């Protein structure tokens, strides 16, 4: 076990940022802390790094309680959201900083510093840019320098705060595959914070979904996606339709847009709706329907299916869920709803 987090609590002013969080992270794992902004994920990351102190609870790192441990002794590699590169130092010196900062008796000799930094420059494919300053690099390049700088101290744990948050969509996708690959090569226990569920699902070995200072669910991506433990997780990990009470005997039914079947014939457990719009851009056709109580739902179907249906706005169609999630009761505390984009 590389990191053990036990019942961490943290208040800022009158609000609970972390309301008792416990989590175990295994050696070599790549874990995503996923949640909306303000859910406490960055604070948790900073507490693990030692940049913040918890009001109560403990962080155990490789069987050592981190309380009272100096930042140097923690050997944590940290990549800041905006990189925090040393702007007056070259790329080379940025990466060498951690090695040069060691106390004299265990500072490596200059030749070794040179070779280690050069190896890291090769790793991040920036060997030729070693003499540049951070302001001469693109965002993706800076991100990689920040990573190399953190790796230079041979950290036992690598922490990344929104590692791709400040990047263009395309750069982001490339860089997260690159990071996934580097993690596979290096095997450093890695924890990263993100608010992007797609990123978490693609990159992480395990996902920790957080909301309102609590952990909602922990699991491997497929499991968290297929079996969301709470309505919040269900809504946060992609679009979901919330259907009213039905034959399933629950108050609400959560169904993902691609897990609905559209048909012209009525089905036993289907509900009827009126097509309001159809958009066929993208890999799937998106059909929006209005059902009872003026609620709107979204259905994703293959283009062929859409063509066969000949649906036009105004048509009455039947919607039948293939797979769905029901929850005993909607927790009253669920106020921090995900952004409107997720909920329909």
């Amino acid at each position, binding site marked *: 076990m590389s990191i053990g987090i036990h019942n961490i609590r943290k208040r800022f002013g009158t609000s609970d940022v972390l309301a008792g969080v416990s989590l175990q992270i295994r050696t070599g794992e790549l874990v995503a802390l996923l949640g909306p902004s303000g859910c406490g994920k960055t604070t948790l990351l900073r507490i693990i*790094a*030692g*940049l913040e102190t918890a009001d109560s609870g403990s962080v155990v790192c490789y069987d050592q309680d981190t309380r009272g441990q100096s*930042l*140097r002794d*923690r050997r*944590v*590699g*940290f990549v*800041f959201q*905006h990189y*925090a*590169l*040393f*702007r*007056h130092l070259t790329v080379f010196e940025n990466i060498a*900083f*951690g090695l040069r*900062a*060691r106390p004299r008796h265990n500072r490596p000799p200059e030749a070794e510093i040179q070779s280690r930094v050069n190896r890291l420059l090769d790793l991040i*494919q*920036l060997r*030729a*840019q070693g003499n540049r300053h*951070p*302001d001469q*690099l*693109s*965002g*993706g*390049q800076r991100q990689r320098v920040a990573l190399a*700088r*953190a790796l*230079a*101290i041979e950290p036992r744990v690598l922490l990344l705060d929104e590692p791709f948050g*400040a*990047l*263009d969509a*395309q*750069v982001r996708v*490339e*860089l997260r595959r690159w990071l996934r690959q580097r993690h596979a090569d290096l095997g450093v226990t890695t924890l990263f914070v993100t608010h992007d569920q797609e990123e978490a699902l693609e990159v992480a070995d395990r996902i920790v979904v957080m909301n309102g200072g609590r952990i909602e669910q922990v699991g491997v991506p497929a499991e968290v996606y297929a079996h969301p433990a709470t309505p919040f997780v269900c809504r946060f990990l992609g679009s979901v339709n919330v259907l009213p009470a039905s034959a399933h005997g629950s108050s609400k039914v959560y169904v993902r847009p691609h897990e609905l079947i559209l048909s012209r014939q009525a089905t036993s457990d289907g509900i009827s709706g009126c097509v309001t719009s159809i958009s066929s851009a993208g890999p799937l056709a998106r059909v929006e329907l209005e059902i009872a109580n003026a609620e709107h739902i979204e259905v994703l179907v293959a283009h062929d299916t859409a063509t066969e249906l000949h649906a036009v706005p105004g048509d009455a169609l039947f919607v039948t869920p293939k797979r769905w999630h029901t929850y005993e009761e909607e927790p009253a505390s669920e106020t921090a709803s995900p952004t409107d984009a997720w909920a329909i």
Partner: protein
Amino acid sequence: MSETSTHPRPGVSDPPWLRNILIVLAVTYLVLVVLLPFVSVLTQALARGFSTYGRALADPAGRSAILLTLLVAAIVVPLNTIFGVWLALGVARTRQRLRRLLETLVDLPFSVSPVVAGLLFVLLFGRHGWFDPWLTAHGIHIIFAVPGLVLATLFVTLPFVARELIPLLESQGLEEEEAAALLGASRWRIFWRITLPNIKWALLYGVILCNARAMGEFGAVSVVSGHIRGRTNTLPLHVETLFNDYDFTAANAMASLLAALGVVTLIARAITEWQIAHTRRNRESDSGLDSFAYGKTP
């Protein structure tokens, strides 16, 4: 970005004729109020030839005034540089409520008239002052002596360095320092290798302003000095003494030194300001440079 644009925006800018009149008025005002007196100081000082100028500067009282001014600045500027940095770090990194209080304290010398500042020190250390019995018992002279000049100047020039640094430190945030700490750097190393290089131009700017004021301060120093020629007269005080003696040439010669200091300060200010603007521009370009596609490495 529109603020820095040289093209006037329609609807906001004045019509050309009005703009020209305003420019002419502003330039005339500057010439009358700033440039003319400045030039007259120099011409008057040189009016009776360079020899008189040289004699005025070679006068023992004059030379001692110059040396005293340099001595006071040599003590005050380093002290207020160190404490200014310390205060600024303290203010920028404390919590909101305490920060307000500290900032107000730092600004106090700016809001108090220098004469009042001088009087404060007389009330504390002068005859019948709070510390007078103790000082007399130990034979220490503060008022009408160099320590008094140093104290008064320290008080008046305290805000310059701190005031320059506080907004910069606040805008820079703490992340670079945090990154350095996580990489294992000691506090000392973080300060010298990370904090100081990031604030060096603003610091230099503050030091220049602090120095200019330390050498040019009149009011506070005037109260605590006692105007003892050759002993407690600083350059500005000596100018006044000479002026009161109707020795206008010598007064102008001395004043021209202060004026020259002003010019040097102005140039140094321009350079540091340019550097600060330059580094700020670089920092702004830090964000949103991503269009340089990732992966295009040679």
